[in-house]
């Protein structure tokens, strides 16, 4: 972190002072050896300082660790060794967390929380415990015989400091603001009061010690979970500190569920308890916070999408309006010329005028086609249970008297579909078939077959057919196979868009001169996705 030299020195001195005070307090809780503490808050302070301020704060940590120990044991040589371990531990821990667990942002995602615990909570304290206890034994401040016990206590104490103390410092340093409304503030105070009441009851030793008491500590878990769900990682880390302080205080007094005859055992129980609470609560808070961020991102994207859709709609509208205005002028002027000067014009000129009007009409159909295509943007959004035969019958009726025979074959099922859009699919396919019907019989057959998982509808004509090259582009916009006629070349593109939006497929089978069969599929209602899932939020 770039700071001015004076500010850096001030920060270093402040850090050293806090570290020293916390160290003295931690040692006052020592159970096994005067230099090996049950919970070692300075390791959490040092780790947080390295992550928040940068690893260059190490001289302050080294100096403070030396002072804490030299004033406790009076042995400068061993204190140097201990200070070296106490400095290497946070520096290495911070490096590992920055490298593998998102650094100071480790509490935003559950996987980073677990990595933080493994790297800074379990791995890096090995350095401090090993260097520290070796120094004690080398200079006769502890016996080699007790190395294992003291080492284990040291390691656990540092781990507790890293897992319980560091998160709360890092999280508050990152965001010290409190912008809760009154209800949220009341809930926070209620949660804190409950945590203190439960912690004091469970660990205070006021109740008669018996087996049932052991379970009381478990009450801390739902409180931590409450915090994880309702508040963020920062508040949850704070609550963990409160519960841990109460547990450590009770255990130190020999009260609560953890004191056992042998002290390392009670320490281990306490550490396991604190570890379980801290890791569960912090990972849960991270999951909840991550979910919240995801929901917010989703809402932002949905909003952007809605805005973009509205803009697109507006754009299509303006384009069609502005393109149609000059077209209307061209057609009108051509009409006026015919109306006013028909008798004075040669036949060829009248024919050209007719062509101008015909082409203008074609252009206007293309514009309408673009508009129709863009307006089916919300396809598949509103499904309802439909009798597909009834929809087909309505479409056939609406087409009026046909100059082709239309036959319906097969059993038509009940399906989940948007009614207007299903009618549009039938209408476009039948209109297409009639337009390309054969001169021989002029028959159009609409049929339905049941397949595995879906229904297959088909519309067959006996017309001119479509060659293979045309088949490939026929479902694209403005790619009508025949000469430009009544359809604007969007009918089949619209069919494809609607069918695919309803999880179906569309295909054509044809040989030139032998008619064409258009097929489309509709998923069976029970095979389709749950109907509620297609609803959009908000």
């Amino acid at each position: 972190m770039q700071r001015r030299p004076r500010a850096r020195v001030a920060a270093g001195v402040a850090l050293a002072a806090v570290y020293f005070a916390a160290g003295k307090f931690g040692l006052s809780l020592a159970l096994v050896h005067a230099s090996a503490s049950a919970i070692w808050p300075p390791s959490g302070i040092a780790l947080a300082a390295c992550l928040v301020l940068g690893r260059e704060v190490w001289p302050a940590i080294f100096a403070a660790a030396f002072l804490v120990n030299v004033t406790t044991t009076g042995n400068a040589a061993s204190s140097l060794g201990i200070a070296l371990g106490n400095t290497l531990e946070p520096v290495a821990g911070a490096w590992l967390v920055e490298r593998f667990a998102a650094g100071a942002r480790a509490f935003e995602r559950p996987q980073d929380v677990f990595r933080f615990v493994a790297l800074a909570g379990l791995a890096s304290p090995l350095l401090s415990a090993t260097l520290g206890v070796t120094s004690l034994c080398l200079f006769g401040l502890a016996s080699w015989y007790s190395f294992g016990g003291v080492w284990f206590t040291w390691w656990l104490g540092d781990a507790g400091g890293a897992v319980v103390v560091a998160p709360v410092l890092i999280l508050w340093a990152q965001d010290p603001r409190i912008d809760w409304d009154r209800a949220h503030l009341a809930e926070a105070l209620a949660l804190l009061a409950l945590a203190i009441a439960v912690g004091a009851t469970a660990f205070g030793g006021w109740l008669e010690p018996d087996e049932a008491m052991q379970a009381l500590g478990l009450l801390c878990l739902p409180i931590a979970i409450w915090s994880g769900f309702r508040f963020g990682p920062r508040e949850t880390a704070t609550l963990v500190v409160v519960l841990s302080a109460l547990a450590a205080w009770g255990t130190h007094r020999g009260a609560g569920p953890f004191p056992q005859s042998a002290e390392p055992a009670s320490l281990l129980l306490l550490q396991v308890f604190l570890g379980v609470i801290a890791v569960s609560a912090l990972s849960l808070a991270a999951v909840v916070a991550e979910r919240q961020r995801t929901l917010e991102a989703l809402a932002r994207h949905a909003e952007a999408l809605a805005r973009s859709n509205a803009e697109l709609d507006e754009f299509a509208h303006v384009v069609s309006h502005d393109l149609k205005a000059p077209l209307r002028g061209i057609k009108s002027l051509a009409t006026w010329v015919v109306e006013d000067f028909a008798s004075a014009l040669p036949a060829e000129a009248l024919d050209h005028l007719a062509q101008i009007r015909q082409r203008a009409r074609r252009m206007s159909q293309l514009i309408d086609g673009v508009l129709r295509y863009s307006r089916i943007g919300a396809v598949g959004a509103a499904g309802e249970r439909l009798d597909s035969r009834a929809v087909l019958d309505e479409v056939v009726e609406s087409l009026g008297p046909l100059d082709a025979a239309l036959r319906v074959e097969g059993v038509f099922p009940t399906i989940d579909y948007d009614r207007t859009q299903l009618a549009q699919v039938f209408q476009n396919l039948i209109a297409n078939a009639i337009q390309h019907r054969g001169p021989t019989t002029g028959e159009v057959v609409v049929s339905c077959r049941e397949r595995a998982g879906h229904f297959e509808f088909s519309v067959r004509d006996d017309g001119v057919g479509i060659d293979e090259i045309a088949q490939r582009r026929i479902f694209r916009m403005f790619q009508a196979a025949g000469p430009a006629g009544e359809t604007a070349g969007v009918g089949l593109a619209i069919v494809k868009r609607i069918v695919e939006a309803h999880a179906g497929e569309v295909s054509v089978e044809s040989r030139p001169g032998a008619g064409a069969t258009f097929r489309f599929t509709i998923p069976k209602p029970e095979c389709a996705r749950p109907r509620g899932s297609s609803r959009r939020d908000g």
Partner: protein
Amino acid sequence: MDRSTPILHVEDDPVDAGNLRRAFSRCGILNPLRAVASRADALALLRDRSAETGPRPGLILLDLSMPDGSGLDLLRELKSDPELRAIPVIVVTASEHARDRRSAYELGAAGYVVKPIEFERFVGAVRTLGQYWALCESP
């Protein structure tokens, strides 16, 4: 419908103005048709009470796109003017947008006709205008 009551057509596109004039004569509507091409001209004509401007129009046909502002703005001005408020206004526009249609009716339009691209349909649209107007005049 009184055949001497003038009709004001506010339209900046001369071809559309011509179409309307032709459609009127095709439908046998013989009321004098005055065409202006801008919002300012429309207001000037309506507010000028000198003798040479003749009687005030009994119907306003209003295009929505205008060189000097939206036709909707003009509609708002007309409906907030105590002298002009009573003249029925029928919007004649190329816009099929539901928003424009809603805004026009909210601002007090008596009708909304979409300009067709075919002249034959223009004639049909003018017949629709006649029906709107008849509705405006019926007690």
